[in-house]
């Protein structure tokens, strides 16, 4: 059907080589005028910069008791202070940093596990697929947060890295599933067959033939895993299983709740961290829709 739209013959004689080039420029063209992508990535970038640079402009630690207690936002303390006189703005920018960290690490680990399992299952098929599929289904059914609560509860070490590792190890299944079905359809294509016939190794075929053809799909999977990791981490932090040594947006929520910010009416304590999480994850998701529309012409608005 689409060959009709593809301008009959126009890909042929008149302009022989720039097919790939044109495709990228067309992608760019749609990217530049896709509001979802622009707004989403804009917000993500601003918050990322804030998390990276913000702490440099704060001349005290995020948990230091430096100010007057329970102050609403003011010129001096932009987001006010906690019951203990901690600077909420300082906590916020440091918290952004660790939230991004958990997202990248936790999402990244889940991504690596998920895509590896998905690729291998989809490409190898047979008994390997059966076993990996079984494993995926088992982990998929287990509710990640509940497993994490039990696992983390017994651990004494509660750093960002350990937290990310645990999150990554429990949240990969759906990515594995999605990648598997994609790889499955790609693995039967001619050029993959050709590569296989010419005796290339599985790993090589996956990285050179299959993965590049679903790169956009992989990017989008990573974004979803990133968002999931951030939300799970926030949940763990809120229950009190977060990093004991640092500060994160989830911990801020936990502290504000534990010290009854709610009933003291200290809205400036619990609104910013939640808004921060929502903004990061939400704009990631919206960015993702934008990407989807760009890579998947069917969804483009006409």
């Amino acid at each position, binding site marked *: *059907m689409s*060959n*009709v*739209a*593809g*301008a*009959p*013959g*126009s*890909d*042929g*004689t*008149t302009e022989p080589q720039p097919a790939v080039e044109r495709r990228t420029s*067309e992608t760019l*063209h749609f990217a530049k005028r896709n509001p979802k992508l622009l707004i989403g990535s804009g917000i993500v970038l601003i918050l990322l910069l804030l998390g990276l640079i913000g702490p440099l402009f704060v001349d005290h630690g995020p948990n230091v008791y430096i100010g007057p207690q329970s102050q609403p936002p003011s010129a001096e303390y932009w987001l006010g202070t906690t019951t203990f006189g901690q600077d909420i703005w300082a906590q916020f920018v440091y918290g952004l940093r660790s939230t991004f960290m958990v997202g990248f690490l936790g999402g990244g680990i889940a991504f690596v596990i998920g895509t590896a399992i998905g690729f291998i299952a989809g490409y190898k098929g047979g008994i390997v697929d059966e076993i990996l599929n079984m494993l995926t289904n088992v982990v998929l059914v287990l509710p990640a947060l509940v497993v994490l609560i039990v696992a983390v509860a017994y651990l004494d070490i509660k750093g960002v890295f350990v937290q990310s590792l645990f999150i990554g190890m429990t949240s990969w299944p759906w990515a594995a599933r999605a990648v598997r079905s994609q790889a499955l359809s790609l693995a039967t294509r001619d050029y993959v067959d050709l590569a296989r016939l010419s005796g290339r190794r599985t790993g090589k075929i996956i990285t050179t033939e299959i993965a590049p053809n679903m790169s956009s799909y992989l990017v989008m999977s990573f974004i979803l895993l990133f968002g999931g990791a951030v939300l799970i981490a926030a949940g763990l932090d809120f229950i009190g299983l977060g990093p004991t040594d640092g500060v994160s947006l989830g911990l801020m929520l936990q502290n504000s709740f534990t010290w009854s910010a709610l009933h003291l009416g200290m809205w400036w304590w619990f609104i910013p961290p939640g808004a921060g999480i929502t903004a990061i994850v939400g704009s990631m998701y919206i960015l993702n829709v934008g990407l989807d529309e760009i890579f998947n012409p069917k969804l483009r608005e*006409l």
Partner: protein
Amino acid sequence: MTLRVKDLKVYYQTLRGDVHALDGVDFELADGEIMGLAGESGCGKSTLGKSLIRLDSRMRHVDGTIELDGEDVPIAKDREMNRFRYHEISLIPQYAMSALNPTRKIGRMINELLQSRGVRPSEVTEELNRRLELVGLDPDVLKRFPIELSGGMKQRVVMVMATLLNPSLLIADEATSALDVSTQRSVVESMVEFRDRGYVKSMIFVTHDISLVYQMADTVMVMYAGRVAEKAPASTIINDPQHPYTKMLIGALPEVGATTDEARLEGIPGTPPGLLHPPTGCRFKARCPIASEECSETPPLVEIEPGHWAACWKTGR
């Protein structure tokens, strides 16, 4: 005269500009005529088929008129077109295998479609069963889901469903491409039978398979780069083509009667011109072995003998 298409222009809107998929198409279709519509992929034949029933959102009607049974067909107006769809103009699509709602029993889906088009299903039930039997299907298929049917069975169900209201014009868009040879043959035979019995008045059969066209069609129209190259009775097109493009197309066939596929048609040197900025003059001139200076003027489609039309300066006027 069932169908009269005059100077039809339909463009595709793309980022890089309009693609002139149909750029001045003229032809007529007589009552009871089965016309094969052939050409390389991208010549506009599928676009023509679609234009006659429903423009998709990127297609734009630029110029030209269509007349069906003396009535003007407003193809640019989606809403007004609805009156013609199914009742007067019907379609067997390229994707007939997946044209049925997978989660509805076939009979129920047909009933719902009929109701939505203002036909009481009970009025046509008998006819529906009779026609299913005619194409070799047990009326029990109506109680099945599409997934329970083979490809050929689905194809026939779609054919019966599409023609149930006795349309004046049936467009079959590559309707048999996905079938194996023997199923193809029986579907094609059923189509001819449907015409003979008057279930459809006339038919346009879009295909890239000229030998299949020859088996069933009364006339063949060959398109090239968004325009009509030649239209003539099927035997004339096969045995005595006049347009150099048709000659090459026929010459590329191994022998009449054998099936062929697109790969063979690529035996013609060169590729069709891009339709984003179509060349002036005759569009075939770059590939034409006998092109000369006059070909920089667009050749008109003229009737070189009764019922035989060609658009080439070299055919005896």
